């Protein structure tokens, strides 16, 4: 094989490799680094603990995961979900706030903070949070209904 032919072959291989890598990169999507893999054995163990009602185990496992992925919104979501189900309302409120602070899906989680306040007996805090949620998502009738419910129950008077 002559040098020219070899050089051309090398360039073609490099171009094909670039295309292959480019395709892989394009098709790999926007899976950001720094995120935990919920389908890893560790992630699945947490989810199966939640399913089986072993919430304290799930919380411990999630907190361990959080040490490896401190900025991953989904880990914070898991933590908030578990604490909420453990009915540790004050912690749940803080955990949901922590999730909202980093997640790009805050409006969906907003009511959870309000509910945690409500369950904790903090009607004034709940109404305030419900109002914030209603402002963020004016189309959601549930927020307005929740405020009306709290106000009509006499649990909170502005």
């Amino acid at each position, binding site marked *: 094989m002559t040098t020219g032919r070899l050089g051309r072959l090398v360039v073609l*291989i490099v171009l094909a490799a670039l*295309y292959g890598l480019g*395709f892989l990169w394009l098709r790999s999507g926007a899976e950001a680094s720094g995120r935990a893999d919920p389908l890893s054995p560790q992630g699945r163990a947490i989810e199966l603990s939640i399913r089986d009602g072993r919430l304290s185990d799930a919380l411990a496992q999630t907190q361990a995961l959080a040490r490896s992925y401190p900025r991953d919104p989904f880990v914070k979501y898991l933590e908030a979900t578990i604490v909420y189900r453990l009915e540790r309302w004050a912690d749940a409120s803080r955990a949901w706030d922590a999730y909202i602070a980093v997640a790009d899906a805050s409006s969906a989680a907003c009511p959870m903070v309000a509910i945690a306040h409500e369950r904790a007996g903090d009607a004034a805090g709940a109404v305030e949070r419900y109002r914030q949620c209603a402002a963020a998502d004016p189309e959601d009738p549930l927020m307005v209904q929740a405020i009306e419910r709290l106000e009509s129950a006499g649990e909170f008077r502005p």
Partner: protein
Amino acid sequence: MTGSRVLRIAARIAVAAFCLMTALYALIASSSFAYLQFLRPHVFPWTDTFANWHAALSWPWLILLAWVVSCHSRHERTRALSWSLLSLTSVAVVWNSVYPILPTLSDNQRSLVMALAALIPLIWLALLEHVRAHALIAPLERSDESWRRFDSRVLVACVTASVVVTAAFFLLAVLERRNAFEPDLLVKGMAYGLWSSLLAHGVVFIAIFLGVALCARIAGTSPFRQHVTWTVAGVALVALIFDRLVGTVLSVPGVFRPLTAVAFAVSVEGTWSGVRFFNGSTKPRRPLSPIVAFGCAVALAWLVETVAAAADWDDVLARVGVAAVWLFVVTWAYGATAANKALSLATVALVCLSPLSIWAAGRAVEGLPHPLARYAVYDASYRTATSLVRSRSGNSAFDRYLNANTGLGDVDVAPVNVDLVPAMDRASRTPPVFLFVIDSLRRDYLSPYNPGVRFTPRIGAFAADSLVFTNAFTRYGGTGLSVPAIWSGSALPHKQYVRPFHPMNGLEKLLDANGYRRFLSLDSIMSGLLEPSPLVDELDRGRDTMDYEFCRTLNELETKLASTSRGTAVFAYSLPQDIHMSRLERWGTPDGDFNGFFAPYASRIQQFDRCFGAFLENLRKLDLYEDSIIVLTADHGEMLGENGQFGHSYHLFPEVVQVPLIIHLPQWVTAHLAVDTSSTALSTDITPTIYAALGYQAVRHGRLIGRSLIDSSDEALTERRQTPHVLAASYGAVYAVVDRDGRRLYIADGVNRTDRLYERRPGQPWTERAVNPDVRAVQQFVIRQHLDETAKTFGLPERQY
């Protein structure tokens, strides 16, 4: 070409077509969903005709095969192979005549084995032809300059082809868009679409160039290497396409999936080689002129779009057709490109890298911006090209997880007791119950849901004194699991089916406990799941499921009701097929003005609206109406051209998952109830609602089980409004989450490896949104929770993915 040659080529193609059709039939039969949804209900009558005539047709096929093989049997190298092929196929044909195989195939491994066996003659024939053709390949002489010229010619051909294909499909998109209201596709939107399409095609065709150039290097100059390289490359390409288009759709299990893909690919490649072998001519033909070639490309593209619009399944026909157009244009462009020009290496590198780098820099593909998503609806080639280079919106592990937990045909699942009321006594009152599940009925084609509908006045009147659930969703897109889930009153394992089904059949248990006399259309699904009972009086007896017509069924039911003694507890169920997509064409062009609606579909609804009104009138005459529970709903909705899609397959688009749900209850049930009809309702809530209407207090063992829609407790309403609900396609790894009280729909499509998000404001249509990673993570967690709970409830094993 001589007449004999043409005849031999025709015979060769006929032999291949018969084998491929046999194999395809067997492959379709092997898939539970395809067997139960298409073959068993006789959706397409020609498939039955083919199966029934298969044994007889195999004799002329054998004669044709013998004629094709005769030209090989005279040559020493292929004589033994030829005679052994003929001997084997003769035995198979005799066997098939005595014991016809195709009509006996069903959804099991035997069908997969049959699919592979049907391809053996083609693979054998391909082997014969390759042995003969090998001698015809001449060694190549290639200097440095000739390699440069070859590369340049292929590159120019690929770039030309990308421009021609883009232009041809763009022209059709412009013409088609003229008839549609597309505010996003005015001049700027179309220009954006054209630019993006040119880039996407550029990326794909440059990849084709690189593949061809490298294969040519591997093939080198020796005849043997050339033959093997191009054959293997062809087989690999066809196998990949086959697996992506057919293997995925039919969910071919385990090792059979690569085996069938390779067997089909070898058969197709072998047929192509055989035709070329018989053609014999190696003289280059004069290429078509550019104008004629472009005209042909446009005509082919039009044909592809037209055929796909008429009868496609998840874009399969469109993509196969697009591949054919690409092949035609590349072949023409190669022939039309001068063979004596050589591009410099720098030019080749620049041309190759430009489209990919522009595409990657723009990331125009990430979640397709709205105008491009709309443009893709009108350009099948752009859809195909972007599907190859689009970023995956989900993640591959999650897709594998979904696929592993879907279609559990190979998993033994024992039935689990679904007892909505553990120890059920007879109810104090047993009103007549009528459950009408109209296959594929969309809510927005009924006046209670859409004030613009003028063709359903009787259903409108019925709704006026009934409960109209305005936010109802089916648990399953597709009849296969939707109907059993309605009967069960629970979400089910993704398996067709767990048998015996009775322990899981909440509705049947209710009917048993109260001695209901049952008037049932025993469709192809429920006939295999319901227990035999002397109380069953069959409707539509002797008719294929696809022939169930609402009017005829209601007439028959009226007759039976008239002859039933007063005071008998009666239950009626039917699954009318009037508006199933496969049936619409039989009704012909409808009369009447259905402006803004899909007329063939709307006209059928108008027709059964009259019958339904007459049936209700008859109930009034029999003094049954006021005391009856009457449920009018659908197993799923339907795509009627939205985004270029028809049917329901495994889509979970809003048009498919939203269903009408109208429930008439006796006044003594509703008298003191304040029912919330606007919060989320699921099809699995129907059976618990019937329980509640009969006075039972249903016990919930988990969130898979439905909930009574007339339970107005705070807990029930909170759950309906605030809990996310997971929906699934019956026939593929596609799941959806409905949350925010039915205002948001997230779809995880493990088949097409993508995801979508729709949102709507109250009273407004759905709008597609980009899926951000945080929303995706949470929604996928919700789906995993649902599947975990299903696995726990039904004792499913942990699946590897």
